[in-house]
């Protein structure tokens, strides 16, 4: 064996051992190649983040700020109205100069451009840059929050990522109770503590009538659950709660499930130092009044404040154990800045995944064996060469998938055996060439030499065309299809290596050892 050949053999062995190593299951990686949701079972969700929620909130806060600063500066308080998500107008009393408000806008709400409506009112429109920033932050924050929640649920290897058009993709392998997970993910979990005005009543107008006249514009009417004498849910009632929100979910430090006096599950919470101060002020100044605990614009409960509360409290409601557990989980993980809409859901139960992998593996094995037999039958000695190259191709393909953490999906399995079918093509091109050269009367070595060099350009072309389509497939695909495209791409690169390099070395080892080989089995 010549030196160059020896090195090439060593290189092939290193590649072989390296990739084989990657696919051997170890203690740390019992599953070296990650299975996709379609093989493992799990849930794939595409959700739209309704970023408008966050933008609207920002606009509302800006109009509140304008009013608050006007009050502080002894300017007439304008009547404000939001016209769309990014714009609000402020109507000033007649003959009021606008300069004072413009200064406020410049100092306190710099993210808004000030203009005028045709009717002469001031118009505040959010700057495009601020809008983009809010949308971006909302998405990032949403992804983080969902990540927290999913991790708290103990889902292994979740995938959560933003996509274009304010969408996020969530993949939860192994989750077989999608309804619950979805509920947990989608709960906005905006917790607020707000003072109650008047008394709750069974319809909104009655509630509003019970509120003192000067407070009527300062309250929101929110629904809550009515409880009967035994504390069971019995219909809906409406509360008038103040618009100001002194303490929110962001002031929470922790939340956990507790048992109440009757053994019913409650959610206990503790507050951050800052939150505890605010909560202490609020409860201390309002003893004997009702404090509404509002979750996602619904009153969960509205207990009477009996004494000043500083660091911790309890949320009571008609919770089951599971509801209490889920609520404490979402409170711990923080609230979502915007609501979510499910656009797409695909859930595969574990038993279907199991069937699919069985069928996929069976089909691959049958196909692979049939392929090997066909090649051996047709090419005999050279067939062994092709089969070796094919096996190495398979090992490289699987090894690469393990190394790059590519996901194996059911179409991906089809991709693997299809790639093997195509890898054969390269060998066939070379072998047919060698046969032709032999028929033309070339000696064995020259025939091999010419066979490889002549087939090279063709093989590159056939691979390039398939690579182009695999790239489009990758670009187009979602989930399983993407897995398929990745498998195909890796397989194509591996096939150039094995068909050209490996197969050539095998021929060289077989025929270069002899000084002048006169026969070749092909």
């Amino acid at each position: 064996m010549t030196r160059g050949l020896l090195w090439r053999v060593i290189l092939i062995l290193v590649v072989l051992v390296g990739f084989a190593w990657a696919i051997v299951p170890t203690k740390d990686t019992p599953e070296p190649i990650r299975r996709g949701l379609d093989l493992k079972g799990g849930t794939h969700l595409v959700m739209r983040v309704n970023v408008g929620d966050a933008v609207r909130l920002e606009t509302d806060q800006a109009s509140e700020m304008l009013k608050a600063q006007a009050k502080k500066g002894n300017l007439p308080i304008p009547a404000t109205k939001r016209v769309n998500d990014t714009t609000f107008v402020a109507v000033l009393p007649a003959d009021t100069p606008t300069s004072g408000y413009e200064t406020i806008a410049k100092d306190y709400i710099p993210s808004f451009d000030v203009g005028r409506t045709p009717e002469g009112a001031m118009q505040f429109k959010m700057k495009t840059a601020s809008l983009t920033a809010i949308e971006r932050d909302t998405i990032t924050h949403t992804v983080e929050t969902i990540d927290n929640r999913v991790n708290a649920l103990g889902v292994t290897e979740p995938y959560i990522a933003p996509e274009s058009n304010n969408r996020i993709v969530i993949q939860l392998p192994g989750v077989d109770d999608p309804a619950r997970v979805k509920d947990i993910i989608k709960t906005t979990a905006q917790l607020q503590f707000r003072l109650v005005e008047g008394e709750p009543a069974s319809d909104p107008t009655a509630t509003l009538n019970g509120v003192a006249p000067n407070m009527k514009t300062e309250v929101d009417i929110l629904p809550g659950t009515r409880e009967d004498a035994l504390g069971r849910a019995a219909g809906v009632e409406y509360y008038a709660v103040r618009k100001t929100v002194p303490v929110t979910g962001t002031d929470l430090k922790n939340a956990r499930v507790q048992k109440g006096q009757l053994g019913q599950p409650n959610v206990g919470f503790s507050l951050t130092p800052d939150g505890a101060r605010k909560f202490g002020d609020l409860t201390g100044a309002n003893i004997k009044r009702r404090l509404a605990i509002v979750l996602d614009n619904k009153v969960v409960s509205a207990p009477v404040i009996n004494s000043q509360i500083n660091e911790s409290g309890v949320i009571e409601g008609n919770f089951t154990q599971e509801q209490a557990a889920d609520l404490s989980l979402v409170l711990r993980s923080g609230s979502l800045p915007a609501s979510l809409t499910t656009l797409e859901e695909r859930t595969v139960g574990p038993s279907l995944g199991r069937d699919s992998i069985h069928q996929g593996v069976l089909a691959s094995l049958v196909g692979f064996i049939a392929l090997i037999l066909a090649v051996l039958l047709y090419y005999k000695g050279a067939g062994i060469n092709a089969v070796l190259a094919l096996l190495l191709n398979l090992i490289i393909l699987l090894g690469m998938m393990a190394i790059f953490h590519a996901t194996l999906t059911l179409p991906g399995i089809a991709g693997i055996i299809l790639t093997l079918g195509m890898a054969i093509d390269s060998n066939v091109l070379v072998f047919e060439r060698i046969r032709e050269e032999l028929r033309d009367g070339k000696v064995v070595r020259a025939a091999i030499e010419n066979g490889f060099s002549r087939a090279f350009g063709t093989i590159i072309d056939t691979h390039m065309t398939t690579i182009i389509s695999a790239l489009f497939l990758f670009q187009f695909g979602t989930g399983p299809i993407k897995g398929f495209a990745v498998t195909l791409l890796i397989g194509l690169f591996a096939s150039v290596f094995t068909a050209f390099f490996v197969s050539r070395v095998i021929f060289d080892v077989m025929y270069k050892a002899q000084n002048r080989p006169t026969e070749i089995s092909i």
Partner: protein
Amino acid sequence: MQIFVNSKFDFVRWRFYAVSFSVLFMLLGLAMFLKHGVNWGIDFAGGATVTLKFRDAVPMDRLRADLADASIQQYGPPEARSVLIRLPELKKEVDYAGLVVAKLNSDLNPQAAAKLDLNFNGRDRLAELLYSVDPDAKGTVPTAKTYYQDVAQNIINKRSEVGIFTNMAQVTSAPGVTTRIAGVLNDKTFLGAFNVLNQETVGPQVGHDLQQKAMWAVILSTLAMGLYLWLRFDLMFGASAIVCIVHDVLMSLAFLMMINGEFSLNIVAALLLIVGFSINDTVVMYDRVRENKRKLKTRMTLEEQLNLAMNQTLSRTILTSGSVVIVLVALLLFGGKVIHEFAWILLIGVLAGTYSTVTIVPAVAIAWNKFTGRGHDLSGPVARTRTDNPPRQQTPTPQQRKRRAG
């Protein structure tokens, strides 16, 4: 073993029959399309599908009564006791499949209000139940949680193995189930009527986006292929490659129409793959035409050149397509329902690709040659259609131009 050694088939002569056959095949597909329309899967049409496996015989009448607007069909063999429920598109974005499953659950499993359904619920709920009852007295330490989670996981794995629990003995035979745990299971759980194999909801917006994306992906990849081959070979080849790809894709689609198959994401994947793969035979054949032009001394018409190249590459074409067909047939036979149509479409596409290489491509090449009225430069000065007069000055191919420039 060798086949087609020095074969001398006159492929070019058959081209009119072949084109007629392809056109007929496509027309038949078109007729089916006009008759039935496209059977869009939920990936594109939006809507929901739910696949359920039942503990006992499938309560078909009950399902039909519950889900008036759904199409319900048996999934797999009768002994699998499974059904596939398809629900038409909703205009709103709601969790459609989830709602349907919840409705069926409340109808078919009245016990679920009081007990936990082991055929319906997942690991977490079961683990929570066991943890809250704590039959093995593990306390409230974190290890207790993992202990019960492991037991619950074993039970769910057992369910995946048997498909659906039909009796409690199956449940309690799962590893890690102690007598006390079994007691709790008998007391607080029951075996519901069905197990959800798969549920999918696709909102109208996603479906619409995907239709657009799929169409562009197929069109752009076809054009990209034509562009690549134009650069590697020349304009005529790029153009005939596009014709060839469009032919193969249309043949596959026509077949899909004939079997009234569902147009799903997997089908698009198959079509994209056909775009990349079926062209390979043509690439190999043209490569040979180009090589022959350089090598052969004798003057040949374009028809003769094409015939020669096709015969020279014939055994390779048959072998390669043969090996891909072998694996596709294996997929078709053993790959399961999920990829059945995918395998069919690929199979048709691969066969169409091979067939179009020896029929449609020469037809396009010869037609091109006649319409442009000059010998095509790919085949050089010696290539003339039979009616042509003596050779003119050779125009350089892009490669030759490049070589001269570089």
